[in-house]
């Protein structure tokens, strides 16, 4: 045999795998441990945990290393690993007011209730490439270690309630000023589980929010910007009421005693976006609020999410914005389908060539008749 296309079977595959492994494991430089990846590439780790929907820094670091830094590939490794695990329990609802903040900003007021806490951010740092020598960098690192200035605050476990770590929401102030549309609901519907049921429009808000929480960060940013500047334009630029990063407790019901127990904390980014209502059928003397929350420290994603949440609510199914959010923002789906174009397509292509010739023959028959 031995004809055409991507053939060669198991030998070719194994040779390709060997090439990948050899270059990855035997790269001509020092070994990288998962601890180093967690310690030095925390934003990449956080982003992958959010998109994978899994909270495990070390496992994520291993995935990023195995994926040679391709973050979507790392997400894929984690999600397909998750498919092999049975689901033991569902967590209990956690009130986001319990968030222990390590960063909190409120762009809507100069002096909001509670602190403006910049925390760990490069927002106001000039983006200058640090070209200091490796030696100087390491010396600074040792000096900082001896001064114990490394982020003690971030590693603090949540303790007691306190205005500095659990500030009041701006939302409450706006409610007191009677400036908000009240969309609180009395019923308590089960959240939509996007991992067990595919979300399709029209979907519940929880389905939209969980789809966005797991979406590929770049895809969500693009959805946002496309609606700001691109052809769609379903989106209003919001004013941010809250941008928070902090710790949330995770609780489950004990399978034997039935008591609610805490099984640890996760870090999340939470955003509340204030929307200026101006629609003819809207309460134009009030604001509305969009919400975003995702695993890890990922402000770009949470802000895009909050703005798209309120945009989708206001759109109320008039456009296909909801379909775009639910169906086109998953990184595994878009990149997997894109890359499938590399697979052999010679059966379909043969069929296409045959039709081209059929069209031509039909035209020739027409001309000669």
């Amino acid at each position, binding site marked *: 045999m031995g004809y055409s296309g991507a053939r*060669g079977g198991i030998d070719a595959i194994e040779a390709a795998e060997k090439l990948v492994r050899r270059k990855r494991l035997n790269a001509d430089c020092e070994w990288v441990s998962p601890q180093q990846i967690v310690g030095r590439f925390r934003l990449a780790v956080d982003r992958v945990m959010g998109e994978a929907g899994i909270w495990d820094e070390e496992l994520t670091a291993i995935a990023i290393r195995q994926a040679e830094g391709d973050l979507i590939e790392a997400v894929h490794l984690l999600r397909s690993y998750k*498919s092999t695990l049975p689901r033991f329990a569902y967590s209990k609802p956690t009130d986001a007011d319990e968030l222990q903040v390590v960063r909190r900003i409120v762009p809507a007021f100069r002096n909001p209730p509670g602190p403006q806490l910049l925390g760990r951010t490069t927002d106001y740092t000039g983006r200058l490439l640090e070209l200091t020598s490796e030696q100087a960098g390491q010396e600074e690192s040792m000096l900082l270690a001896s001064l114990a200035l490394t982020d003690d605050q971030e590693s603090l476990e949540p303790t007691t309630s306190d205005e500095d770590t659990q500030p009041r929401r701006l939302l409450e102030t706006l409610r007191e000023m009677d400036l908000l549309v009240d969309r609180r609901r009395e019923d308590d519907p089960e959240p939509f589980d996007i991992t*067990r*049921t595919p979300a399709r429009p029209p979907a519940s808000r929880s389905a939209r929010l969980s789809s966005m929480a797991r979406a590929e960060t770049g895809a969500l940013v693009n959805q946002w910007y496309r609606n700001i500047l691109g052809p769609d334009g379903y989106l209003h630029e919001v004013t941010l009421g809250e941008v928070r990063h902090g710790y949330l407790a995770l609780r489950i019901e004990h399978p034997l005693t039935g008591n609610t127990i805490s099984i640890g904390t996760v870090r999340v980014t939470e955003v509340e976006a204030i929307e200026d209502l101006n629609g003819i059928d809207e309460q134009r003397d009030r604001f509305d609020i969009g919400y975003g929350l995702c695993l890890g420290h990922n402000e770009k994603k949470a802000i895009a999410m909050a703005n798209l949440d309120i945009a989708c609510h206001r759109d109320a199914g008039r456009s296909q914005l909801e379909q775009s959010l639910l169906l086109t923002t998953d990184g595994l789906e878009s990149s*997997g389908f894109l890359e499938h174009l590399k697979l*052999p397509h010679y*059966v*379909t292509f043969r*069929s296409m060539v045959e039709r081209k010739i059929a069209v031509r023959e039909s035209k020739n028959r027409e001309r000669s008749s």
Partner: protein
Amino acid sequence: MTDLLDKLGAEHEHQQFGILDEYSKREIRRAILTAVAVPGYQVPFGSREMPVARGWGSGGLQLTLAVISPSDVIKVIDQGDDQGVNAVNLRRLIVQSTKVQETTTASDASIVQSRHRIPEDGLDEQHILILQVPVPEPLRGVERDMRELSRMHAEADYSKMWVSLYEDKVRNGVITQTTGYPCLVNDRYVIATTPIPRWDIPRLDQAPFLTLFGAGREKRIYAVPPYTTVTPLTFEDVPFEVEHTPGASCSQCGSNKTFLVEIPGPASRWVCSDTDWCERNSGKTQ
């Protein structure tokens, strides 16, 4: 708590047969039963992330792993070829995680997982054919809004599809739909016939075997049960045409009664896309 988790974990260790956890398999089997009960209806399911990328057979793989048992014999093809690299990779995943027997002969298999082809022969009542589906929605070319699409299927309103076929015929003189030709199943639902060639469509009609369609990325499963009517959409006076090139025959086995693919070049040649059929029949047909 830890004891309980360990216990549950230990139970799970024994259930590693076929990658997916048992709860997921059960869910997929339920979706399959619905799909068989309502031929051609696209059943939504909670598609799991697999160790192959979405768009690379993740739906077909989930179906195979949900229905397979240790006594099964598996055949996996891509473009009709057992040795296509993605077929090899999928077969390796299935065999490694289930330890089932593998074969290249369709009649020796109990489950055939395939991308883009139905094997030329050998499938009978005891076989399950699993097709990997990239795009399960046959009407997407004429309608993008999913809410409208579900209404159209629910009311069997396929008028837009008919209009598009009519316009195609008027503009081009022939219907130019290539592979994945839209078909009416059991006189009720229109399905996307994966991108199998038109050549394979008549072979789905009243087929003795069960065909399952798995779209992992789009999270849909549908089925053509044994002995079900599958009718390609066409007009009374426009006969449905399968791929045909006058004078072409396989340069390996001489067949002109199989689906052939071209090897381009100065002296262009043709070969069977079903490589196993071709090998078995080399020297017979001529």
